[in-house]
C-alpha cells in the first residue's frame, strides 16, 4: 500500500520533519529527515528522542545508513543543532543543503566537516531548483527554491522549498523562506496541494510581504484546500510571538484548517490510497 507520512516533530523553537514513504516492491518504507533542533542538554533532545521512541515503538530496523537523505533547509542553528548527532546515530545516504555565503556557513561548514571525515564519508551537496532529486520511494520530489546561483543575504531566504507528491497529492515543505521568496514562487505552488508547512514558524515575515500574502492567496485559489502546519512554540518561557496573531487571523479569515505544534504536539500528514488525513496528539 503506497503511503507518504510527513511528521512535524514538536521541537519547540525550530523545525524537524520526519519523512516516511513506501517503496513499491519492498516491505520496508524509506525515511528521510529535514532539519533538527536539539538544542539543550540530553533531557531535551526532542528530535533525537522522538526518532528513538518512534522507531523503537514500531520496531523498525535502523541499520546504517538508515535515512535516504538528511536535509538542512538553511544555515541557522535552530534548524541544524543536533543534526550531526542524528546523522551519526542513524547514518544517511545523502546530506543536502542550500548554497550559503561563507559568513553564513556556520552550520553548513560544521556539517560538511563531519560528512567529509574519512570515517564518515557521507555523500553531500548543495541543491537548488535546478537539481533533479529523483524519487523518494514512491513519491516524487521537486525543489522550488532556491534558484540556481542566487544567494540571499538573509539565510532564511535561501531555505530549500521542497514539494513531495504521491497519488496526485502534494505536500510543500518551506523551511523559513520569507515573503520575498513567495512573491517569486507563490505561483508555483502545486494546484493539488493538500498540506503546507507554514514558513518561518508562522512569523509575519514568512507570510506577509509588502502588505500581501504571497503564498496564502495561491492556496486560497488552489483546487484542493491545503491544511496548514505550523512548527512553533509561543508559550515557550521566552515568548517569541510565533505564530504571529495577524498571520493566524489571516488563516482564519480564509477558513484554513491548521495545526500548530505548541498546541497539537507532533503533527503527521498522511497521504495514501484512502486520500489525505492529518494526525496529531492533542
Amino acid at each position, binding site marked *: 500500500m503506497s503511503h507518504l507520512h510527513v511528521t512535524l516533530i514538536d521541537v519547540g523553537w525550530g523545525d524537524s520533519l520526519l519523512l516516511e514513504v513506501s517503496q513499491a516492491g519492498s516491505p520496508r518504507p524509506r525515511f528521510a529527515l529535514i532539519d533538527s533542533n536539539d538544542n539543550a*542538554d540530553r533531557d531535551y533532545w526532542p528530535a533525537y528522542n522522538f526518532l528513538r521512541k518512534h522507531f523503537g515503538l514500531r520496531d523498525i530496523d535502523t541499520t546504517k545508513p538508515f535515512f535516504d537523505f538528511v536535509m538542512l533547509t538553511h544555515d541557522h542553528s535552530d534548524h541544524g*543543532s543536533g543534526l550531526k548527532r542524528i546523522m551519526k546515530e542513524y547514518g544517511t545516504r545523502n546530506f543536502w543543503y542550500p548554497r550559503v555565503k561563507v559568513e553564513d*556557513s556556520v552550520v553548513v561548514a560544521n556539517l560538511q*566537516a563531519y560528512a567529509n571525515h574519512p570515517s564518515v564519508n557521507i555523500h553531500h*551537496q548543495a541543491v537548488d531548483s535546478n537539481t*533533479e532529486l529523483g524519487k523518494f520511494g514512491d513519491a516524487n520530489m521537486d525543489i522550488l527554491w532556491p534558484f540556481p546561483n542566487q544567494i540571499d543575504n538573509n539565510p532564511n531566504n535561501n531555505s530549500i522549498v521542497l514539494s513531495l507528491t504521491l497519488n496526485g497529492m502534494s505536500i510543500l515543505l518551506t523551511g523559513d523562506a520569507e515573503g520575498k521568496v513567495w512573491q517569486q514562487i507563490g505561483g508555483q505552488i502545486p494546484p493539488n496541494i493538500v498540506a503546507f508547512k507554514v514558513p518561518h514558524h508562522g512569523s509575519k515575515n514568512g507570510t506577509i510581504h509588502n502588505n500581501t500574502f504571497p503564498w496564502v492567496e495561491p492556496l486560497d485559489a488552489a483546487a484542493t484546500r491545503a491544511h496548514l502546519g505550523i512548527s512553533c512554540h509561543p508559550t515557550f518561557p521566552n515568548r517569541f510571538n510565533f505564530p504571529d496573531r495577524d498571520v493566524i487571523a489571516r488563516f482564519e479569515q480564509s477558513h484554513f484548517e491548521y495545526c500548530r505544534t505548541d498546541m497539537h504536539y507532533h503533527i503527521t500528514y498522511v497521504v495514501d490510497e484512502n486520500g489525505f488525513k492529518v494526525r496529531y496528539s492533542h
Partner: protein
Amino acid sequence: MNKLTIPVQIDSIKEMEDFQRTRCLYYRVELEDGYVFRKTRYLLSSSAFFAAGVSWAALAGPVLLDGVEHELFLTADLITRTITSLNGNEKLSLDMGYLWVPNSMFQKAAPGVSIRAGDVYRLSLPYFRYCYRFTMGKIPDEDWLNPRKRFREPIHPSPQETEAFRQWRLEQIAISHRRFHHESYARFRLAKKEVTK
C-alpha cells in the same frame, strides 16, 4: 589565557522592536556510553571518574594537542585538527548548541562595532551559564536583559578567532567542492533538470 571563556559564533541577529537578541552557536561535546576521565589537569577533582550521559560546552581552551598546549581556535589549522579529532572519536560526539545573547551586550563589549554572522565572541563562564539558563527557559526575559547580578567582563570580541573560523569555513567549502568535482564522485552527483526554471 588565564580566565575561562567560551567561544561563540554569531548565528542569527534579531533586531525587531521588542526582540533585540542574537543567537550564538557554541560547540557541544557529548558522550553517551560513558567515558573515564583520567587526565584531571583541567578538572576540579583530583580523582579520575567515569561519566555517562553528559553533554557540555567544551573547547573553551586551552587544549592539549600532540603534547602542546594551545589556546583554541586561533588558527584554521587548530580548528581543523580539533574538530577532525573529535569527529573521529567514537566515544565522543561533537555537535552544535546555541544560546541567546542580548544585542546590547555586544554594543557594550565593542561600542560602535556592528556584529555580523560568523563573528566570534568569547563569553565568560558565568555569563555563558546565565545566557544558557535563559535559553533553556529558566530566567525571565526582564531579568536576562537587565541582570541584577554584575558580570565581570561578560563578553569580548575575538577578532583572531573570527578570522580563523572564516578561513576554516572557506576550507570546508573548498574541500567539499573538490570532493564533489572529483571524477570518483560522478556517480553520486545529482543530475540537473532538463528544463531550467
